[in-house]
């Protein structure tokens, strides 16, 4: 089965669980921005949880070359006629995933089919491109997850307290931040209360997805799946791994509040 891309707006890429194990050579794992939504789309068509699917950050219009059955998390199961167009929008969420039964057919590079823009592994989808499944399937699944569940996003403070003014963490927790349109898979920029730095100079240190870096202007950047493996901005806190999906699911222009989480209690919350 083939789907043909009619239009891709924003960033539309193939993503799976990413390629762990290469950070020592400067390559962050990458992979789906909102992994729970990737899993949900894959389950809707009976795929393995981490099968390659299409991540839509923006809008994708596709045309099916045969009749296909669509399972989505937003409307009842239905059949899309041959040559009909399907519009998949990430709004009102940040990311939506389109899974094809059998998995999207894409080359595995260094162990993963995920597109990694910075490392030029794979490429964003463009109009005219065909997308095939690795199986023999007439079913697709579409899924997002809503971010507005579970309340504040939990953060473990530190480790760079020396690089901040004493009230920096209090500022982060004081009021909601807005997710800036200047956000991508490398970093999510937030606009809100200024997080004051100390006079400590920038030092290039290891980073991690979910780290809340603070440049001199005091407006935080949360590192995403394609983050640089080292960065010069100090880290005021790191989002708990269990809350990363909820954070990255917040739409552009949406609000996020933070609270302090604790190691060993940061279990999944929904």
């Amino acid at each position, binding site marked *: 089965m083939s789907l043909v891309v009619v239009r891709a707006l924003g960033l539309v890429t193939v993503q799976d669980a990413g390629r762990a194990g290469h950070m020592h050579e400067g390559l962050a794992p990458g992979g789906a921005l909102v992994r729970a939504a990737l899993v949900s789309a894959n389950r809707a068509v009976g795929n393995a949880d981490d099968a390659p699917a299409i991540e839509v950050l923006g809008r994708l219009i596709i045309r099916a070359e045969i009749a296909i059955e669509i399972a989505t998390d937003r409307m009842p199961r239905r059949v899309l006629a041959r040559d009909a167009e399907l519009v998949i929008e990430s709004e009102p969420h940040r990311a939506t995933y389109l899974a094809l039964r059998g998995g999207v057919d894409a080359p595995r590079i260094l162990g993963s089919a995920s597109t990694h823009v*910075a*490392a030029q*592994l794979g490429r964003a989808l463009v109009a005219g491109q065909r997308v095939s499944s690795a199986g023999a399937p007439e079913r697709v699944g579409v899924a997002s997850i809503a971010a507005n569940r579970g309340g504040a996003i939990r953060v473990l403070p530190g480790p760079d307290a020396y690089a901040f003014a004493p009230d920096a963490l209090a500022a982060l927790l004081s009021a909601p931040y807005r997710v800036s349109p200047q956000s991508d898979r490398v970093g999510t920029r937030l606009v809100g209360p200024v997080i004051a730095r100390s006079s400590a100079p920038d030092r290039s240190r*290891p980073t991690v997805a979910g780290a809340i870096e603070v440049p001199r202007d005091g407006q935080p950047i949360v590192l995403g799946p394609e983050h640089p493996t080292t960065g010069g901005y100090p880290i005021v806190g790191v989002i708990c*791994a269990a809350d990363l999906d909820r954070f990255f699911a917040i739409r552009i222009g949406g609000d996020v509040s933070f609270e302090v989480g604790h190691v060993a209690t940061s279990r999944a919350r929904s």
Partner: protein
Amino acid sequence: MTERLGDRALRFARPHAAPARILEAVKAWPGVVDAVIAAHDVAVYFANEPRDDYDARIAELATLPIEPVEGREHVFRVVYDGEDLPAVAAATRLTIAEVIAAHAARTYDVASIGFLPGFAYLDGLDERLALPRRETPRTRVPAGALAIAELQTAVYPFASPGGWHLIGRVIDGPMFTPEHGARLAFGDRVRFVT
């Protein structure tokens, strides 16, 4: 001191052992999926929240040998035509020919890898060429650019913003490929020839 970098990673001061040995050791720890060896720190990444106490293992890293492991020898062909050559010459009070000769005379070691996929910070720069980073970073440095800053040199694997001084470009191939990942690894030694 060991610090938590979120609930799935630990960060600690880089021991004075050969980086290839540190990397090999930490990647063998239970539950470890990734590691970054930066200029002054090591970060170790776990599949799940680390529950064991890793302090003893971290302390043991300091007993690893400082002698580098035998890596590969690379000879990169370079055109020394970087935009910043005249400024580097002026700031170092050398001629452009002397800057080039000083850079090409040395053999460099991989000190750390980070920033971009395949971006290796190379130690061994001639002290006469040491300059602080540019006050205003460029918004775009082309892939393959050969640059210097402080006591290091590096080749930009991909086009990116950058604050180092551009002295030339490497003309024999990419620094990161889908097939093999990063071209340079810890223990490797690098020379540049015209």
